[in-house]
Structure formats: C-alpha cells, structure tokens
C-alpha cells in the first residue's frame, strides 16, 4: 500500500462501515456509539493529508489510480490542497451532524447512521474524484442520502420537502449528466486531465453545450438564482441538523466540483484557456452572482423562519462567491475557496444551534424562539460570533474571508461587484441582528437547558468548535488563505 492510495480510504472506509454497522445493530450493540466513533475515525483520517502536508512535507496532489489504470482508461482520485482544505471541514460537520440529529426517544430509524456513512463516502468521493462520470455517481449518492436525511423526521411536511428536494436535485443531476455526455462526445474522455488536453480539438458548440449544462446543473445544486427556489422549501421541512449538514457538506463538495470544472478545465481563466480566447463564463457567473446576492439577501430579510432565513442567506453568499470567481484572478479564486470553507463551518454551526432551539421549542419560527438565548451564555456567545462572522465583521474568520474577497475584487477592478457584496452584508446585518435581538430580549426566558440530553451536549460542543474556528481562524487567516492560494495554483496548473 502506497501513500498515494490514501484518498480511496476516505471513500472505502465509510462504505465498509455501512455493513459493519448493520451487523453491530443485529448483534444488539450500541449502533450510536459505534457509528459516532467510526465517523470520528473517518474525520481524523480526513485531517491527515492537511497535517501531513503542512507538518511532514507530504507533497500534495496525491494521485490514486483506481485499479492501477491511468486517467485514459480508469478513474483517478486526486487529493490536491483544495480537497485537503475542505475534507476536514466536511467530515467534522458530518460527525457533529450525525450526533446532534440522532432522534432520541423515538424508535430508531433503521437507515439513520448508514445514511451518514454514505453521505461521508459520497461527499469525500466528490471532493477527491477527478473523473466526471464518477463525480456524477457520487453526486447521486449524496443526493439520495441528503433527501433521506431531510425526510427522516417522517411527517408529511418532511416528505413534502424531501420530494421537492429530490425532484429538483434530479433535474440538476440530469443537467450535469447531459453535460458530461456532451463533453464525452466531444472529447472521448471522462477524466478531467484528459479532457483538458483534448478540448482544443473538440467541436466548440458541443463543448459549449457541455459546459453550460454542467454549470447549470451545478447552479441547481448550489441553489444559485434562478435555479434556487427549491432550496428554502427543501430545507423547511427538514430537521435543522440535516439542513446544517446539507448546507455545509453538500454545498462545499459541489463547490469543489464547480472549481474543478470551471477553473480546472479553463472555463474561467487558467493558463490553458482551453475553451476559447474569451470565455463566456465570467459574464454568466457575474450575472447569476449579482442576481443571487440581491435575491438571496433580500428574501432572507423577510423570512419568519430561521431555517428559511439561513437557506436564503446561503444563496446570497454563493452569489458573492460567484461574483468573485468570475473575476478570473487566482487571488480572487483563492478568496472564494477560503470563503466557501468558512461558509460551510459558520452556516452549519448556526443550523445546529437552530436544531437545538427547534427541538426545545418545537418550532423554528423566529418569534417562537424569543428569549431562547437569554440564559444560555455559551449559546449566546457562539450564536453572536457565528452571526458576526456570516455578516463579515471582525474579529472573525468570516471577516477575513469576506475582506479578502472584497479586496481581491477591487484589485481586479470590480468596484460594482465589491459594492454588491458589501451591500449584501449590510442587509445581512439587519436580519441577523433582528433574529439575535428576538432570541435574546423578546419574551420571557423559559426553562434552562436539559443537560441530560446527550444531543444538547453535542450541540454545545459543535458550537464551541464552530465559534473556536471562527475566532482562531481570524488569527490564522493568512495561513488558511495561503493554503487556499496553493490549492488554486494547483488547480490552475490543471489536473496532473
């Protein structure tokens, strides 16, 4: 076994754990303990490449050839700095989400933990794969798991959400599959590294169709306006812990796919510039991003439910990222990677808090949560820090990444974009402050948290982790940004 085969462990071990968990449950042992311990093991594995690269001089793009075949014939997994940066984040979110969302007291839903294993396998696979069709397969695995996690509460609204989410997600997948097939027809290859070599000789109309279909499909998955309207509906009926995991994990994984396709294949920028001398994607992404920022933040302003507010705010954040991405400079792209990683942590943290609050109050309406934070100093501090970070105020990591994004955008000449991003933040201040105000001051504080519930403790752990990352990351922002920059430079070099 060689080091370069490491990425496959991140897929194979969670998959292996699924039947093992089944056997454990049949042996009347505690699935919960086993599952959380083993998910934790996977998460620790996910930290390994980053630690090894930084501390022990591991040279990073790890290239795992499945079955020993090269990119021409088989599937190659690539663990580049981009994956190394995002894998720890997504896997940590999965462990915490699985622990928080575990339905205590109810009859254990049979597939609950297997779904989290499969989600881990799918998202890790999507993050490390460099083969388009393989990416599609992992995308479908993620889709099925996340829909099931949306539905697992089992009431009519949960199934309604799951159905809407599933249909929309499948349409997105269908777009992506059409795009992959178009690229396959044009270049005769499925591996990104082969496609990038063959693009110059391919029929341009077919390549354009393939790229636009893939981008449209990814926009569906990322919920970019006008592809977005399923998302708030899809998350409203979901348990907030699942919604948090979906926001954090799925969006990060799909963002990686987008970067690999658009930046890696030269759709925007890149030394290869393989699409054409003047690629249309900067214009398209600018347009979509601008609309997303406006619609996302202004719709978040008028939401009465916390989950929907957070969902719309995600739309705005990804719009801002697209705006920066469309500038095609490596530094701006690095800022986007940085912000994407931060957004995953911060949004999941808030969703987990929302999960705890909704479990206690039985509703996620902001008015129904009034006074929830009043006598919970830890939750209050964490919530305030996370919201500050999402708005982009110091001293948080959210400030660092948003600032990096705005600075790079201005440096590349996009004043209007910078104003849009900043304007979105200004709107975000209003709705976050309103929610925070209601949750602190309105209404009388009710009973104190029940520390006996293990989920409450996990939630507190998650909040401490999230807020800790937010504060520590502010100090180490330059370091994270350096990792993101190296990720982008590897990406721009084209997949090896």
């Amino acid at each position, binding site marked *: *076994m*060689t080091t370069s*085969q490491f990425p*496959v462990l991140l*897929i*194979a071990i969670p*998959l*292996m754990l*699924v*039947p*093992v968990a*089944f*056997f454990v449950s*049949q042996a009347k042992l505690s699935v919960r303990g086993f599952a959380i311990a083993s998910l934790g093991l996977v998460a620790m594995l996910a930290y390994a490449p980053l630690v090894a690269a930084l501390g022990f001089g591991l040279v990073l793009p790890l290239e*795992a*050839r*499945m*079955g*020993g*075949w090269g990119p*021409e*014939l*088989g*599937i190659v997994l690539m663990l580049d700095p981009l994956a190394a940066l995002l894998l720890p984040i997504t896997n940590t979110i999965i462990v915490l989400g699985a622990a928080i969302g575990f339905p205590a007291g109810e009859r254990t*839903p*049979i*597939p609950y933990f*297997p*779904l989290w294993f*499969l989600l881990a*396998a*799918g998202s890790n*696979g999507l993050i490390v794969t460099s083969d388009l*069709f*393989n990416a599609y*397969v*992992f995308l*479908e*695995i993620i889709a*099925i*798991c996340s829909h*099931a996690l949306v*539905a*697992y509460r089992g009431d009519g609204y949960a199934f309604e959400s799951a159905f809407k989410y599933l249909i929309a997600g499948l349409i997105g997948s269908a777009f992506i599959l059409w795009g992959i097939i*178009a690229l*396959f*027809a*044009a*270049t*005769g*290859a499925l591996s990104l590294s082969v496609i990038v070599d*063959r693009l110059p*000789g*391919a*029929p*341009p*109309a*077919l390549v*354009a*169709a393939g790229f636009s279909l893939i981008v449209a499909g990814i926009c569906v998955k990322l919920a970019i306006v006008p592809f977005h309207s399923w998302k708030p509906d899809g998350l409203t009926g979901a348990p907030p812990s699942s919604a948090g995991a979906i926001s954090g994990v799925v969006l990060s994984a799909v963002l990686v796919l987008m970067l690999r396709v658009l930046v890696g294949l030269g759709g925007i920028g890149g030394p290869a510039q393989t699409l054409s001398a003047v690629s249309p994607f900067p214009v398209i992404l600018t347009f979509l991003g601008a609309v997303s920022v406006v619609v996302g933040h202004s719709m978040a302003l008028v939401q009465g439910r916390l989950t929907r507010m957070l969902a719309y705010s995600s739309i705005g954040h990804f719009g801002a990222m697209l705006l920066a991405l469309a500038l095609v400079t490596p530094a701006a792209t690095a800022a986007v990677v940085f912000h994407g990683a931060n957004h995953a942590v911060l949004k999941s943290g808030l969703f987990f808090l929302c999960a705890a609050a909704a479990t206690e109050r039985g509703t996620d309406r902001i008015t129904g949560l009034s006074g929830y934070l009043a006598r919970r100093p830890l939750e209050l501090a964490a919530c305030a820090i996370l919201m500050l970070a999402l708005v982009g105020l110091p001293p948080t990591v959210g400030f660092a990444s948003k600032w990096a994004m705005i600075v790079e955008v201005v440096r590349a000449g996009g004043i209007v974009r910078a104003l849009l991003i900043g304007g979105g933040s200004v709107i975000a201040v209003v709705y976050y402050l309103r929610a925070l105000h209601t949750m602190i001051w309105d209404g009388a504080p009710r009973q104190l948290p029940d520390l006996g519930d293990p989920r409450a403790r996990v939630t507190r752990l998650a909040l401490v982790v999230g807020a800790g990352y937010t504060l520590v990351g502010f100090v180490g922002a330059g370091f994270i940004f350096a990792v993101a920059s190296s990720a982008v430079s590897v990406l721009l070099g084209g997949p090896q």
Partner: protein
Amino acid sequence: MRRTLALLISGSIVALGVTTLMLTGTLSDAIRPVDYTLRTVRDTGAINAVTAILFDYRALDTLGEATVIFAASSVLAFLAPRSSASMLSVRLSMLILYGIAFLLPFIMVFGFGTIVFGHVSPGGGFTGGVMLSSSVVIFAVVYSVGGQQSYVLPILVKKYVENAAMFVFVSLGFIGLFSGGAYLANALTGIPLGEPGSLLSGGLIPLLNIATGFKVGMGLALIIISLFAE
C-alpha cells in the same frame, strides 16, 4: 398560460440542442473514446468488455452505483410500513400458481448463471442480479408479499445478504490495495488471470460480479417489495 410558457421553454431547449447538433455536425469529427475492446483480454482476462470496464477499469463507478441501490433500498425499507399486502385482489388460477412454482427455480438458476458467467458471456452482476430479484418479485406478485416474506426470503435475510455482499465488494477492493498497490486492482494483485474465455478467468472480476449480483438482487427485491407494501 402555463402551457404556453412550458411550450416556449421546452421548445427553446430543443432548439438549443438541435442548434448544437447542427453546429457540431456528425459526431465522427469528434475525438473517439478509447477502444477498450482490444485490450480487455490482455489487461483483465475477461472477454466481455462491458463487464471488464464495469468491474475493473471503472470499478469505482460500480461500487458507487451499488451504493446507490443500497441507499435506495434501505431508505425505501424504512419508508414502507410492515404490512403484508396482497398484490392482486383475485386469486390466480391453479395453472398459473403451479406454472410459476415450476418456473421459479429456472429463473433463479438462469440468474445465477448470468452472474457467474458474466465475464465470458453477455451479462454480469447487474443483469443477473435483476433476474434474481425478479424471481423474488414474481413470487410476491403471485403468492402475496406476506407469503413471500415468510417463506422465501424474510426481509432481514435479504438485508443480511445485501450487507454481506457490500462488505465483500469493499473488501475485495482492499485486496488490491494491500497486494497490488491500487484499490480495486485486479491483475496487479498477482491473481492469475486464467485462460480467457474459461470460467476461471478474469482474476477478481467473477468475485466482484457475484458480490454485485447478490447486492443488486437483494437491493432491487427490497425496493420493489417495499413499493408493493406501500
């Protein structure tokens, strides 16, 4: 209003597609994909190129799709209430009942055969798995879901088989990792590829085929039975 809009939208998508097609011309101008066919025998020992691609070159995809079936079956099993509904309200005639009882073993044997000979003849784990599941499904249709569950394969057994098959598939991948240097490696592990065209050829491919066959068979059976029970 909605219909006009729908017509407009789908019409423009069709127009865009056809435009792309016309701009591209015949696909013979495009770069052709790699032709696996001629190197299959040398590389894998299997003479069925499709099976070789599915279980060797792109075995990770297969693992992924098996996972999709697994996920779908476990979600659907969770969704379905444990009721024993009869598929048809009228009882079928004795002729059909006995006829099916006579046919079922043959269907199963044919399914097993398709799985086992997947690398040397048309077929493979998926096809054979579907045949296996179809035997279960036919049983459920004819003799009611409850009867099928109690006599032929209880749900728990199906889940055991499915999980075991998944375990085997992933473990077979690890063999390649530990002895061949690459996950899901076949020839690199040193396993003899055998005489192409014979049953014992293709290295690990037949084993993966069998694992996949059981997994698909049980998974699809679970899915369809669950939908019946709905």
